[in-house]
């Protein structure tokens, strides 16, 4: 492994089989002694112990309502005869011969034309490596993965949640498009559960938040970026490339291929603008957009996900929540969301970005029939110096609403108004406020209605 260039020479250090570091040496040393050694790499033997799975051998009973496609062997397919992905085969083998022609079925006829990969897995999927006949790990491999068992124990998941479901939560739709084996359905359910608990928590704790702040706060609690961070803090690692030979304890998804045209995302936005879809108001965001007030991308053809890692991680967290919901029940899922998502730290005062706080405070005082807010100097120092400080209070009648300190009078008034507005918006009935889902427990106290304020002062 010698690279000859005009000035620098490198050779393998120490000439030992395993040393892979390039060491820079002098020219004279190279000219007399040139040995190129190709290191022979042996795969280290690793062992997985059976005792790492102690307590994880629980299997739900056969009549379990929550069976997800692998638990019983009645009408459900046994793992060896899992249906292979028709979509991939029709796309990846367009010039199929006689053997391939039977795979060319339309999606409408998918149910009756189930193809079993048991026939000849290596022949049916040509693009994959021969050692990886399926798109995602087999379900029985979940029982032999130390990573998966460790993750199960690390999250303190209930014993009722089998390892096979955990393995399924780690398979992104971009890795295995088959709905029976990926986590798309679980993520859909889990996303709803998380959004519900976050929304009731925010609404009951801060009943006066404006809609824009509510969107931002729920995005901070359960947005895809936060969920991706949570999954990484759980110690979940990604597989380099999905496949059935991969450890099922790794997150399986397809990364962006080199040369992917990311401009298509911008194109989609441009198309909506061309169609005259101009949506600027908060009302349209509430009705038409997702739970964070972000635009739902228009599905046209095959969309390109610009952040596949973040999406896969967040889908995994959602799928874990829903698998707890499915196997262990509502209370366990609520507890999990409370412990892992709602217990995180958020400075909600820093989410506000006011454009015209002085006017907004005046409108607020008018709406609530307070007196008109007046700014008064409380204290000042160094008016003629380079760095003066003015302390300004905003008064409505005799009541002080807020106070701010700044190097100019106008800025101090703005800061005082912002303080008064934040004090209004961030009213909270207390830390132990009850949420509607508390009523679902056993023998709850009678529900007292929660006051939810109007929210915005100026729309």
């Amino acid at each position: 492994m010698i690279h000859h260039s005009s000035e620098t020479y490198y050779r393998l250090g120490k000439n030992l089989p395993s040393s892979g570091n390039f060491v820079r040496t002098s020219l004279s040393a190279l000219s007399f002694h040139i040995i190129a050694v190709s290191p022979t790499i042996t795969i280290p033997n690793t062992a997985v112990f059976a005792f790492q799975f102690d307590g994880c051998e629980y299997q739900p009973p056969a009549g379990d309502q929550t069976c997800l496609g692998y638990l019983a062997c009645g009408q459900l397919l046994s793992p060896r005869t899992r249906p292979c992905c028709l979509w991939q085969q029709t796309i990846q083998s367009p010039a199929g011969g006689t053997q391939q022609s039977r795979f060319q079925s339309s999606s409408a006829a998918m149910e009756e034309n189930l193809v079993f990969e048991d026939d000849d897995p290596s022949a049916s999927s040509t693009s994959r490596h021969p050692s990886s006949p399926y798109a995602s790990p087999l379900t029985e491999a979940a029982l032999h993965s130390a990573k998966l068992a460790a993750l199960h124990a690390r999250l303190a998941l209930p014993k009722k949640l089998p390892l096979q479901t955990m393995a399924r939560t780690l398979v992104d739709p971009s890795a295995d498009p088959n709905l029976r084996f990926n986590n798309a359905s679980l993520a859909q359910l889990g996303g709803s559960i998380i959004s519900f608990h976050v929304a009731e928590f925010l609404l009951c704790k801060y009943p006066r938040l404006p809609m824009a702040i509510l969107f931002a706060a729920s995005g901070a609690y359960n947005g895809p970026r936060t969920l991706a961070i949570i999954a990484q803090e759980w110690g979940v690692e990604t597989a380099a490339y999905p496949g059935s030979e991969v450890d099922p304890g790794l997150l399986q998804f397809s990364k962006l291929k080199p040369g992917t045209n990311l401009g298509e995302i911008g194109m989609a936005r441009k198309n909506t603008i061309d169609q005259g879809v101009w949506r600027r108001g908060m009302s349209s965001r509430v009705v038409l957009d997702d739970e964070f007030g972000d635009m739902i991308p228009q599905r046209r053809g095959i969309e390109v996900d610009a952040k596949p890692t973040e999406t896969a991680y967040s889908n995994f967290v959602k799928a874990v929540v829903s698998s707890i919901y499915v196997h262990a029940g509502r209370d366990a899922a609520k507890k999990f969301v409370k412990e892992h998502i709602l217990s995180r730290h958020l400075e909600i005062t820093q989410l506000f970005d006011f454009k015209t706080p002085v006017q907004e405070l005046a409108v607020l005082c008018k709406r609530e029939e307070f007196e008109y807010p007046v700014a008064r100097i409380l204290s000042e120092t160094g008016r003629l110096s380079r760095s003066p400080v003015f302390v300004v209070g905003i008064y409505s009648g005799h009541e002080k609403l807020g106070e701010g300190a700044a190097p100019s009078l106008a800025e101090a008034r703005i800061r005082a108004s912002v303080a008064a507005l934040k004090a209004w918006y961030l009213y909270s009935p207390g830390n132990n406020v009850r949420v509607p889902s508390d009523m679902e427990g056993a023998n709850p106290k009678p529900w007292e209605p929660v006051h939810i304020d109007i929210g915005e002062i100026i729309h």
Partner: protein
Amino acid sequence: MTVRGLKKVTVSQNGVGAFILQCHKLSFHYCDWAGSSRGMNSFLRNSLQRFAVANPQIEIEVSPRPRRHPVIIGHYIGGRQKAICVRNLQKEQIMQKAELLRDASGEKLKRVTKPVKSINESVRGVWSPYYGGGITV
């Protein structure tokens, strides 16, 4: 719509709700031949099972490294690693080293002078010299 929401992300407080052990994997490397691995081999045969059962949240990997000293490597959440060479140690000492790696957070060791670290805003607010009417202008 004069107020806009800024995009932020919540910050983890490990232990406030759920607790995640920061050490997620321990790999034990041994040599069958060398004498410095004698205690390690005895640890792997006798004590490792007890350790693994007591700590199910840690993934345990055992692999030989011929002609090398025995090593325990702890892999931590966040990507850091800690390696401890356990050559010529008895199996009880190796168990102590494994527990050390389990209890560590994976961060680099730092000298800490203040015992309490907080990210919360002050409970009683920031004191200001203008407060309390102490200053007459």
